[in-house]
């Protein structure tokens, strides 16, 4: 099996598995004052230190949450509360208006839509054909009413990296807070919240060889904050619910391993990515590579093949033992192909034929070679049947 879908989720790191096995018996509630509780508390705080130091934050700025989606929901929902005049927690004179982008993950887009339905002003940044958000649009359209700007650091489908530092600066110059969804960035490239000068950053455990069901939100010290899950003192009252100790400790281990492995891995993946791209160019005609090809994480390659539909490619590859993902509509059960690719101005017929290849820490050169071979035969196979690839095989 060749697993090239690391942007969807990653296998647990062996060291994370070891840590989880060792920790499973530590059942104490971190809030308890007795010994059982103190053991759990110590381990949770150690993990918090690790996550914080991995992104250049201090421990008190990290809130553990149930997922990256929860972190994203929390920021959007609460920074836009329309009770801001009377609320004791989030005292701000800003109107609850949000600026985000059209290529965000659904957990941002659908929350934004819900906010808009509730009467909040929501605006969307468009993107250039290379997948970069239009920074000038933010400069021109950000207003005094804008309370929060939220733009993802790395896009999950294309791997394109946004200029978060520049975007955060514009937000701050206009008195708005800045959030970045760092779920696809953290662990794939160096991320330093102080250097980027962001107020909020979301991250997720299962994208970085940790378990599912654990995420974290960085909240810059001194930033007004309002919880989404209420009713407990956990996480300093910022996220109620007894801590997922096992998940938190595992996330701590996962970032520790990322810190050790990421640099060498990136070098390796950089060479694999260009090898893969060249292999595709050499063997398969009529292909487009999507997203910015320089400002991108090296794990991800998104390619579209004329006359070949994405779900068919995905399933033929699956039968060859290769796992990839697609921006095709048919795989997701809706009529519209990837909103990200369409926002980049890609014609629907190309968007239907796109494949996202995302490599990871265990990817080998042999796997890349095997993949190129199987992809080549698969595309030929699909095009042979295609209504729009007549006589061109």
């Amino acid at each position: 099996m060749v697993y090239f879908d690391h942007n969807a989720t990653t296998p647990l790191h062996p060291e994370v598995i070891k840590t989880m096995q060792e920790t499973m018996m530590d059942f104490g509630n971190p809030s308890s004052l007795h010994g059982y509780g103190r053991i759990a508390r110590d381990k949770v705080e150690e993990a918090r230190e690790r996550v914080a130091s991995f992104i250049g934050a201090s421990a008190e700025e990290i809130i553990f949450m149930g997922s990256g989606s929860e972190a994203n929901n929390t920021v959007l929902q609460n920074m836009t509360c329309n009770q801001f005049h009377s609320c004791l927690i989030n005292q701000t004179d800003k109107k609850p208006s949000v600026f985000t982008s059209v290529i965000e993950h659904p957990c941002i887009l659908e929350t934004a839509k819900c906010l808009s339905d509730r009467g909040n002003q929501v605006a969307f940044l468009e993107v250039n054909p290379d997948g970069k958000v239009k920074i000038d649009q933010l400069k021109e359209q950000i207003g005094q009413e804008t309370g929060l700007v939220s733009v993802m650091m790395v896009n999950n489908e294309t791997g394109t990296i946004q200029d978060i530092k520049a975007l955060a600066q514009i937000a701050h110059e206009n008195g708005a807070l800045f959030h970045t969804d760092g779920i696809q960035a953290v662990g794939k490239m160096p991320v330093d919240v102080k250097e980027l000068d962001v107020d909020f950053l979301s991250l997720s455990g299962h994208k970085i060889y940790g378990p599912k069901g654990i995420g974290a939100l960085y909240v810059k010290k001194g930033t007004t904050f309002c919880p989404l899950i209420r009713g407990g003192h956990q996480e300093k009252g910022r996220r109620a619910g007894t801590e997922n100790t096992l998940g938190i400790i595992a996330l701590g281990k996962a970032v520790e391993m990322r810190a050790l492995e990421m640099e060498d891995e990136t070098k390796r993946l950089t060479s694999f990515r260009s090898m893969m791209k060249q292999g595709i160019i050499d063997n398969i005609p009529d292909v487009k590579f999507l997203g910015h090809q320089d400002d991108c994480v090296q794990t991800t390659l998104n390619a579209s093949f004329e006359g070949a539909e994405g779900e068919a490619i995905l399933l033929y590859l699956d039968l060859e033992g290769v796992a990839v993902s697609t921006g095709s509509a048919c795989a997701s059960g809706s009529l519209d192909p990837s909103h990200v690719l369409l926002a980049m101005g890609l014609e629907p017929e190309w968007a239907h034929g796109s494949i996202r290849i995302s490599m990871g820490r265990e990817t080998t050169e042999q796997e890349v070679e095997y993949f190129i071979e199987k992809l080549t035969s698969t595309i030929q196979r699909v095009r042979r049947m295609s209504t729009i690839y007549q006589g061109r095989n």
Partner: protein
Amino acid sequence: MNAQAGWIYSEKVKDHFMNPRNVLADEKDFDYDARGETGNVKCGDQMIVFISVDKDNNTISDCKWQTYGCASAIASTSVLSEMVKGMDLDAAFNLSPKDIAMELDGLPDNKVHCSVLGDKALRKAINNYYFKNGMEDKVVEEEAKIICECLEITDHDIEEAVLEGARTFYDLQEMTKISTSCGECRQDATVVMQDYLTKHFDQ
């Protein structure tokens, strides 16, 4: 690990997807009597069905096809091309998406719309044959009937919405905006919707 664990489609779909029958890679390779094309690459599905006809018996002697689409689109066209061989033109004309889905041992609900295109393309091919052979009287055009006069929404739009997952009138309104202007067509639209739910999903 079993890589094929829990494949989303039936074994029969898998078989036709893996070994599609009667693919026509190049139009020049088949001396066909008629062709029918439906769908649109922009929407993610397009099919062309080619037939040759035994003129003495009015039966389909051979059927070949091309498809741009997902696994169930490929499998549906493949199985259709086997089903219609030797079939009387009238019987072939009346094949329904449900017949095709049954032959494939069922399709997931959200994939039923892929099998609709195959029989549409086939009907177009049969009509094309009638036109070319002076049998215009046999042609049955599938004309769309407007249900919602205000917003010009047709029975075909309702069928499309049902295939895309609409199960309640509320779903239908969300997807098509039908009956959101004067509201007079609500009763008619409900009946049409129920017909398509029965036709495609036995609901």
